């Protein structure tokens, strides 16, 4: 029986076409649809499944970010998490918040809440950092199981199938541990409307990074955010000979 801490990040919705701000300091977030990071949804689903299988006693959803982050905590609660912790970071500071900060916060919470398992999405679809789970494990000095494809409870701990290049890898780990969810771990459930209503009544605690003793002072500076270069139009060639000639001309062969 374990207590599971799940990280949920609020990101720009996957279906939104992201636009760069005219002053190139970042991307446009105002008036843009946000939702829970898809990999975090998978993490929440896995945690809730563990609870349904009576392998976990409690699921705690954590989000680090500005006030709006509570939206994704509510979604996690509607999916079946028991309570939420919102670590408030002011919007301006949040823009420069890095995985190192988040992992320190999560590690502190994991200890404070006496969690036996931390499950995170393998990466967030906004910054694609893919670092938080690994760093959290390092801060806690716990074993890690990243890119989980399957999580099974065994007597000694957990048997985890990981997605690696070219196949799957099976490892065994003891708990407590930090896991990160890959795409094929499960299919997340929908938060149904009645559950959203019920989630309103579940507890949501608010703390600051300072309360947790984590320094979130930015250590980086954003110099410029640019659109990807526009792909130049191609050309059609008459036959293979012309193609070969063109390639030679361009120094490609």
């Amino acid at each position, binding site marked *: 029986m374990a207590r599971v801490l799940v990280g949920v990040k609020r990101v720009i919705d996957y279906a939104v076409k992201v636009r760069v701000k005219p002053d190139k300091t970042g991307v446009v977030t105002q008036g843009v649809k946000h*939702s829970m990071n898809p990999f975090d949804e998978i993490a929440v689903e896995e945690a809730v499944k563990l609870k349904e299988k009576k392998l976990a006693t409690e699921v705690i959803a954590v989000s680090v970010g500005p006030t709006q982050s509570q939206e994704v905590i509510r*979604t996690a609660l509607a999916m079946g998490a028991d309570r939420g912790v919102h670590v408030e970071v002011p919007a301006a500071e949040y823009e420069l918040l890095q995985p190192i900060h988040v992992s320190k916060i999560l590690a502190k919470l994991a200890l404070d809440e006496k969690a036996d398992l931390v499950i995170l999405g393998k990466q967030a679809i906004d910054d694609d950092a893919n670092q938080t789970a690994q760093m959290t494990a390092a801060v806690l000095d716990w074993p890690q199981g990243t890119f989980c494809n399957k999580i099974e409870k065994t007597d000694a701990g957990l048997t985890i199938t990981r997605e690696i290049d070219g196949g799957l890898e099976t490892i065994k780990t003891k708990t407590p541990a930090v896991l990160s969810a890959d795409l094929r771990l499960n299919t997340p459930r*929908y938060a*149904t*409307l009645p559950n959203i*209503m019920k989630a309103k009544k579940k507890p949501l605690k608010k703390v600051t990074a300072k309360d947790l003793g984590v320094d979130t002072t930015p250590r980086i500076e954003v110099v410029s955010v640019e659109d990807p270069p526009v792909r130049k139009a191609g050309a059609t060639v008459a036959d293979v000979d012309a193609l070969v000639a063109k390639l030679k001309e361009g120094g490609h062969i």
Partner: protein
Amino acid sequence: MWKYRTLNNCNLAVSSLFCSRLPANQTKFNAVCNSRNKSTVTENQSFMANIFRGSLVSKQVFPYPDVLNAEQKELTNSLIDPFERFFSDVNDAAKSDANSKMDDDVAKALWELGAFGIQVPADFGGLGLNNTQYGRLCGIVGANDLGLGITIGAHQSIGFKGILLYGTPEQKAKYLPKVAAEQVYAAFALTEPSSGSDAGSIRCRAVKTPDNKYYVLNGSKIWISNGGIAEILTVFAQTEVVDPKTGQKKDKVTAFIVERSFGGVTSGPPEKKMGIKASNTTEVYFEDVKIPVENVLGKEGDGFKVAMNILNNGRFGMGATLSGTMKKCIELATAHATNRVQFGQHLKNYKGIQDKIAQMNILQYATESMAFAIAQNMDAGSQDYHLEAAISKIYASECAWYVCDEAIQILGGMGYMVETGLERVLRDLRIFRIFEGTNDILRLFVALTGIQYAGSHLKELQQAFKNPAANLGLIFKEASKRAASTVGLGGTDLSVHVTDELLPSSKKTAHCIDLFGQTVEELLIRYKKDIIHEQILLTRLANAAIDIYSMVVTQSRATRAVNLNLPTAQHELNMTKALTIQASDRVINNLKDITSSRQKALNEQISVIAGTIFENGGVNTTGILDEN
């Protein structure tokens, strides 16, 4: 929230406006004014009803209502995403259409989503949302699957709405949890083979048993949505009611909650329909069905009122739903016009296409503005929304048909293909002009209800005069003249309610409202009670009323957009201005036609033509090749 201070001011303005039209007999003037002031609480607050008597009661339209508090708005927003995801990930509208049935696992997921008990209080297992919040979700349904919309609409908008509105605490406790979340379907059974628009003429009959414990119901209903799957039915039947005053026995309609498990309830095979195929439509038969007396819904003999109020209460949902449908059609048409190149140009660069797409959005804007004005009025506790609800049903169903049709036109051959999905929407949409009160009947309802209201006020005027009825016409003329001469050209002034940029628009609308009130009076003078037979005129009057309502709600909403500094404000203003030009022109033409002799001659001609056709059972012309 409603701005109560502003409202009270409006009330005063209304009273004084009314009084200014009374005769200059000071004593009676004061008496009527006082009685009016006392009765403001119960006074009809409907904007539309009041323009029939040429007066302005603005509280239900200006300022644009805003009834949800911050928490309710946030909650509503949190429901949008999962609701939309159901449609994008689970539901398959095309498949349900092709199979004439929603898949069982889709239906199950829809129940789990909570979509069948949206307005049932949380204590009874529902979501406990109000009309405005329900309307927001309806828009999503309308954008995705109208057939599914009928299944959940027939269930909660009419099927068990009677229990919500009229149910006793026991009835609510017994039935609401089932229909809200326990996968028990409900249906509304009013229509019969010989009783469609004329709902008072139903033949189903319920007879009380001698021990007064049961009613025994016999008869049949047709075209009942969810008829084949419903376990709980709201059924209307004739019952013998004794008038407590006269002691006379009389047939009156009574509403009942009927469970299929009572025995004797059977249903026919699913009807094959043009559209909304995902929904189940059947005949329902009642053979000696024993209904416990405690299952009477509302009072015995009040069934007609119960039925009408259920329908009135649910109508706003259609506007909300169809504004979502239109939005989707516009999206598809916009995407096509943006990408498709013909004659070396993207379609969007052609003025003809621009005209179509702009027109489509203007109608969508007006439909949505109506739906959410009404929903919010209802949530603010208004009882006077029936005219507006009927107007919005007519408007929404006709605009949606037009918009979908034009979307198909913009997409050309592509629009005609099943794959695109618009042909299904067009088939689905056709029923909306027919069911829950045909648009033709609702037009008469709008015109006659308004006229009746105006007439009752004129009667008050008449009593104030205490003149013999013979002079009624004269009094009407006087009143009409006075109304027009009170302030320059007309008495109506909307300028205080709209943003500066809409002042010219509001002036046009005010002129229409003045003309409207005068036309109603003229009609009353000319036709008196016989106005009821002048359906062509009544329909024109209703059309004018609909156009006026569309102008007022859009002007109010665009003003709101400006006041809130919304990024879309200028676009909303532009659409409102365009709509006002078109709608006010139509209003003036319609109103002029009502009283013009040329139009009267035309109407008579039309009657003669129709008479000939009916006499001959169809077309009665000699074919070009048939003469000899």
